């Protein structure tokens, strides 16, 4: 496994930055008449300015939530692939026929392990405080993903914090 999987978090983070800037540009195009032609052949052309601005602001709020979902999904994949990579050495143990079957089962079932249990495995090589923070990020991620209006939101995560915390965990795993 290529543990230079920090790159996937950076791709997501960069995309988020460009998305934020794109919203900014679109809002300026909507508010500044001299830039009206930029809206040609877009949904904004047929929509009122007020409605379009409202939609952009709503999209901006959503993008802050979706970036946390995207960062988490990639982060979780990195952890699972790390475990799968570490598990490969089981195959070579004697007796080999048994070890190969054993490895197959572990690798297949890894995908279904509880992520909180997986995170706990990493406490031996990653600062437990960061692991604790990542569990809170997961809680927020679940709230965003499930959108239950009856539930009070859990602790809010600022996107840059999610990026920093998850990136640092990956870095500590990489350096272990």
């Amino acid at each position: 496994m290529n543990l230079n999987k920090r790159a996937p978090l950076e791709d997501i983070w960069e995309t988020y930055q460009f998305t934020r800037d794109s919203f900014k540009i679109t809002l300026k195009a909507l508010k500044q008449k001299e830039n009206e032609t930029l809206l040609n052949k877009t949904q904004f052309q047929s929509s009122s300015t007020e409605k379009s601005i409202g939609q952009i602001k709503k999209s901006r709020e959503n993008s802050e939530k979706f970036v946390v979902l995207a960062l988490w999904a990639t982060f979780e994949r990195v952890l699972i692939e790390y475990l799968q990579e570490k598990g490969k050495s089981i195959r070579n143990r004697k007796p080999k026929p048994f070890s190969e079957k054993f490895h197959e089962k572990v690798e297949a079932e890894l995908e279904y392990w509880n992520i909180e249990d997986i995170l706990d495995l990493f406490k031996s090589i990653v600062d437990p405080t960061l692991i604790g923070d990542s569990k809170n990020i997961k809680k927020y991620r679940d709230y965003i993903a499930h959108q239950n209006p009856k539930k009070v939101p859990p602790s809010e995560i600022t996107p840059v914090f999610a990026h920093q915390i998850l990136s640092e965990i990956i870095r500590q795993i990489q350096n272990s």
Partner: protein
Amino acid sequence: MQKELQITVEHFCSSVDKLFSQIHSWLKETPLKIQEKETKIREEGTGYYSIPMLFITDSEGNEIATFKPVGALIIAAKGRVDIIGPFSKEILVYLNKGGPTFQDSTVVKGHRVEKHVTPLFQGVTQAGWYWIEEKKSNRAYFLNKELLKKLITEVSDYEFK
């Protein structure tokens, strides 16, 4: 509300009050108009609580920036206020001196040794409100008059003379 949670919320409300007083002071010599209105926030375990929001307009009544408290229960921070303008949004977070930290280890000859405490963000030299530069995710800037004006310009294109 549990006592510890209550203390956290009270600290956040007090920090927001101080922030808004500071903003009034920093902007008093500008043509900008500032209004405060009360809003309510509900967080996990707190129930609803009241907190002010700040609305800044120019001399013609155009929206410049809204300072909206988000909450006290912020992962790795002690509070958050969003600065929302007509074109974009920036985020302020309250951090204690040093900010959030983690333990890191240096690997020497294949063994993990020498644990040391590392801050998650550089630049958190005192407790207060900070802006994290998202393009350089590990850098925090303490909010002062110059940074406040820069952020107001960032979200609104308002030019301070």
